[in-house]
């Protein structure tokens, strides 16, 4: 029985539909604006990864600087499944997600008692340990060469089989996964569980007083974001037809933090989406334009943090607020005060 006063969370919202429409039609317009399908695939993968990551960073306020490990483990699990067990895309990505979750769950056992900088440092330490194992255990992982020749398989959808060989087909598959993950995460952050995560971000102590099992909450959200990272990683292995240790390095783990922040993960569910798009398009564009692209890239980060640390989503929200003030519409904000804004 639903309380008549409860604000129900809609399954779909306008920004969500906008994202689905814009991204879902990418193969139709991407090339005409100078992009290419493979880039679209990577962007979708990183959006999935970033959305899962933001559950941790933006919603729970837990900075993980070693998340590349779980992404990479997902890629390895997928590749090992294809190369050594059996060739099935579904089995591969399920295994990838599972492996990412197991590794993250293991690390989270040590991490969940920690806070702030100590938490951050421990995530780095675990990230480095996993990365080190990936390089060291070369009989399993292929060492620094990685696992190669993981050919793109065929996706069995009941009666029909779809080959993922073309970037276009792979794009639509990744996009379908993104849709599922988005709907799922949207439900989660608006569930009581999601509210509890945000309470932990506000104050761990208070969340404990209210009766939440803070340790379990932190453990579960870390593991969940590891599952999503592993899932994204396994799709990355499909796209690259290989699994490399580099994505597990500290350097690559930093990327996901940057994407999430630059997009505005602290103030919006959609921040990581914007961030991943900007991150990749800017990198691709600058990288082909100049050899000193890192300089411009660094300046871009500095500029965002100097002028709008809430990221692109923050700029958008300010803009919308002004628009609202102008039109003086009825002020019925559905956003609870202390949550990451839903729009």
């Amino acid at each position, binding site marked *: 029985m639903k309380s008549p006063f409860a604000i129900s969370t809609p399954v779909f919202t306008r920004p969500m539909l906008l994202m689905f429409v814009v991204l879902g039609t990418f193969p139709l317009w991407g090339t005409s604006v100078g992009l290419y399908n493979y880039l679209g695939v990577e962007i979708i993968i990183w959006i999935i990864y970033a959305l899962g990551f933001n559950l941790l960073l933006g919603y729970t306020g837990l900075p993980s600087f070693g998340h590349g490990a779980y992404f990479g483990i997902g890629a390895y699990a997928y590749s090992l499944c294809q190369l050594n067990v059996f060739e099935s895309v579904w089995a591969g990505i399920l295994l990838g997600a599972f492996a990412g979750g197991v590794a993250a769950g293991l690390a989270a056992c040590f991490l969940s008692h920690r806070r702030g900088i100590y938490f951050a440092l421990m995530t780095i330490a675990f990230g480095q340990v996993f990365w*080190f194992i990936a390089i060291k255990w070369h009989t399993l992982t292929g060492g620094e060469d990685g696992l190669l020749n993981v050919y793109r398989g065929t996706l069995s959808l009941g009666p029909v089989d779809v080959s993922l060989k073309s970037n276009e087909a792979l794009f639509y598959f990744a996009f379908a996964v993104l849709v599922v993950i988005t709907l799922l995460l949207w439900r989660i952050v608006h569930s009581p569980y999601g509210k509890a995560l945000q309470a932990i971000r506000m104050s761990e102590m208070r969340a404990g007083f209210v009766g939440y099992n803070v340790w379990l909450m932190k453990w579960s959200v870390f593991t969940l974001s590891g599952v999503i990272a592993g899932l994204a990683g396994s799709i990355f292995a499909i796209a690259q037809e290989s699994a490399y240790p580099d994505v597990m390095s500290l350097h690559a783990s930093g990327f996901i933090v940057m994407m999430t922040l630059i997009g505005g993960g602290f103030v919006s569910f959609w921040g990581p989406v914007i961030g991943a798009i900007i991150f990749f398009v800017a990198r691709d564009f600058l990288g082909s334009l100049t050899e000193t692209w890192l300089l411009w890239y660094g300046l871009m980060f500095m500029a965002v943090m100097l002028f709008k640390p809430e990221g692109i989503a923050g700029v958008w929200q300010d803009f919308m607020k002004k628009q609202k003030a102008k039109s003086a519409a009825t002020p019925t904000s559905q956003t609870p005060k202390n949550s990451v804004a839903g729009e």
Partner: protein
Amino acid sequence: MDVILNLLPHLVNGLALGLLFALIALGFMLIVGVMELINLAHGSLFALGAYFAMSIIDPNLSYFGSFGDWYSALPLALRYVVALALAPALVALVGMGLEICMRRTYGKKAEYGLLLTYGAALVIEETIRITWGSAEQVMPIPDAVSGAFFAGGMIYSNYRFYAAFFALFMIIVVWLFLEKTPYGATIKAGAHDSEMVRALGVNLTRLRLLVFGLGASLSGIAGIILTPIWGLRPHVGVDVVIPAFLIIVVGGIGSFWGAVIAGVMVGLVVAFSGAYVSEWSMMSMYLLLIVVVTFRTRGLFGKKSALEN
């Protein structure tokens, strides 16, 4: 007896290495301790210090005519001392510039400041690459501290011991500065309670500028001392940030001697693992961190810090 004789060189080596690690962490520690800010540009400032010093020791002075000839004719040791004084000062200026940018992020989430310093790290590294090129270079050192000596049938590098003693000297200087001067007292007070310091009429803005400048110059000094061992290339600083970070956390944030002891511990762990289980020598410091922080929430001697929230 043989075992001890075999272990001794590694013990000596580990202690020397540990002092160098502590030196690497010094500038980082000051900024974290006082400003509760993780300075990811630490490594780039480290590299910048070394490049400045190299240019001061061995400059291209063709534009300066007779002054250039006169300067180049000075003994290397003298030019080295000039560099050791001047290069950190230049890095301090860069650090202060960065602090002025940082001001906009004060009072906001720690991650924002972190990302700003990351951006700065990229910009500084790329600027080094544009200015000095990406090739490996050599940091000149005076003859007095180069070469090698024999002890107990083993060869040791003079420079390594000079560097370790210099590190020890810097540790003491910084400690004396913090403990025995009025500036140090203010800085320490600022680390504990910035509101209180402000209430006491201290100009907090200037204090932060000073601390950041000082921290940056210490990063630069570490660069000048370490690069003759590690080699000099634009991305040399990448190898510095994580050890520095790790040492601070093992030692406990806000604890001076905690950081020094942690540095020595890391040095010993790296030296012994390098000698006996060499394939684990890179990983050993991370395992040390996991062990320490698993059992001691705030590292060895950490105090409560805003960075925990």
